[in-house]
Structures are given as structure tokens and as C-alpha cells.
């Protein structure tokens, strides 16, 4: 039960796949109940209206105190089966992306989540893919910088 990322070179989409030791109903609920989303996504949920023509808005404050907003519109919802939505990081150069979420039942009350994410271009996908990698490097750099600054003082 490990998250799998399928991102073929030269394509502008990727798949995020994971199996859960949960029935589809519970897996689906984790995506539509604001209090639950807040906990596992680590974000404040300003708005979440999981319906056709609905939308959502998340807000996260980083350790430096900067506020980041994430939002999107919901295009299609089928209870315990699928959610189609857009995702956007507000005030960033990253274009909006389209996400197809499928919730599939597996034997023994297990389920599988498949997120098919489509980006504006191959480059946009690769940039998003390497974002956590670069954030990791930046964090390491910042930590080094802090240690360095403390030594000087």
C-alpha cells in the first residue's frame, strides 16, 4: 500500500495511485468533509462545496508566516465514485491543472484512489513534479544559512 506516481517523460499528465485499507465510502468522505480535509491535507478549508458547479478554497500559512491560497472549481461529482475538479495555486506562475479522481472498490473492504492530473504543458508538469524536490533543497539551504548566521552572531 504505497503511493505510486506514474509520470512518463514528455507527457503533460501524471497518475497518482494508492490503495487504502478503507471502503470507498470512507475514502470518498475524506475528500468532501472540510474537517477531515483540513487534517490530512494540513490546510485550512475556507470553502468546500463538493457539487457540480461547486468550488473549494484552501489557505495555508507557512512557517515564515506567508499565506498561500489554493482553489479550484468542481466540475463533476459522483458519490463514492469520482470527483473532477481544477486545482490552482493562487498568485503563482503555475497554471491551473485538471484533476480526475476515481475511487474504486477492491475486495476485503479496501479501495483504490487514482488521481489523473493534466497540466497545461509538459514543462508545467515537470515543474510541479520537481517542486517538492526543490523545496526540500531550499529548506536544506535555509537551514544551513540559519546555522551560518547564528555562528556569525
Amino acid at each position, binding site marked *: 500500500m504505497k503511493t505510486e506516481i506514474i509520470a512518463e517523460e514528455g507527457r503533460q499528465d501524471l497518475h497518482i495511485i494508492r490503495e487504502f485499507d478503507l471502503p470507498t465510502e470512507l475514502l470518498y468522505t475524506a475528500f468532501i468533509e472540510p474537517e477531515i480535509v483540513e487534517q*490530512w491535507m494540513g490546510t485550512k478549508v475556507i470553502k468546500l462545496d463538493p457539487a457540480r458547479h461547486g468550488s473549494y478554497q484552501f489557505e495555508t500559512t507557512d512557517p515564515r508566516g506567508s499565506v498561500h491560497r489554493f482553489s479550484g472549481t468542481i466540475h463533476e461529482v459522483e458519490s463514492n465514485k469520482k470527483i473532477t475538479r481544477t486545482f490552482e495555486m493562487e498568485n503563482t506562475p503555475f497554471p491551473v491543472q485538471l484533476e480526475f479522481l476515481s475511487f474504486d472498490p477492491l475486495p476485503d473492504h479496501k479501495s483504490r484512489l487514482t488521481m489523473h492530473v493534466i497540466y497545461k504543458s509538459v514543462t508545467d508538469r515537470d515543474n510541479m513534479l520537481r517542486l517538492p524536490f526543490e523545496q526540500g533543497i531550499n529548506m536544506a539551504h535555509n537551514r544551513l544559512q540559519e546555522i551560518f548566521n547564528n555562528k556569525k552572531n
Partner: protein
Amino acid sequence: MNLRRDVFQGIADPTRRAILLLVTTQAMTAGAIAANFDSARPTVSKHLQILTECELLKQQPNGREIYYHLNLKKMKEVAGFIEPFRKMWEDRFVKLEQLMKVYKPKK
């Protein structure tokens, strides 16, 4: 950054990925590798050349034969690049699963 792009070019092609898979268990000669594919021998040679150029494969002479083996260090670089993205989602999903295991529906 150039180096990294090359690695991804290496794994971009399905035949090249199949070649990498073949040599994970043992070092093989070009002939032995080509025997596993329907493609013409020069096509396989070309793939081997690209994989060697981007350092995913290493050549090792053994007598008159040249053996190809996997460059594990380079393979880790490919995996490591996507790994933080994967881990970000895995961490979220682990939390999701824990939360929903003790979930009580709201009235």
C-alpha cells in the same frame, strides 16, 4: 541540470526501460540483450549507446566481450527526483487512512 535531462531521455523510451529491467539482475552482452527484442540489432545498439551516454548503463570489458550493467547510482538519481513529490502524497495518504479508520459519521 543538463545531466539530469539526459537521464530522463534515457528512460523515456519503453525499449530502453525494458533493457534497464533486463540488466538489473545480471550484466549482459549486447548480443544477449538484443536476443530479447524483436528490433533489429542496430536499433538495440543505438539504445545501448544512449543508455551508456546518459550513464544509466556502464560498460565492462570481460575478455573479448563487453558487458553492460546497471549504474545504480544514476538510477537512484532518477528515482530521487520524483521521490519527494511521491513522499508528499504518501504522507498525506497515511494521515488520511489513519483519520478514516477512527472516523465517526456526523449526525
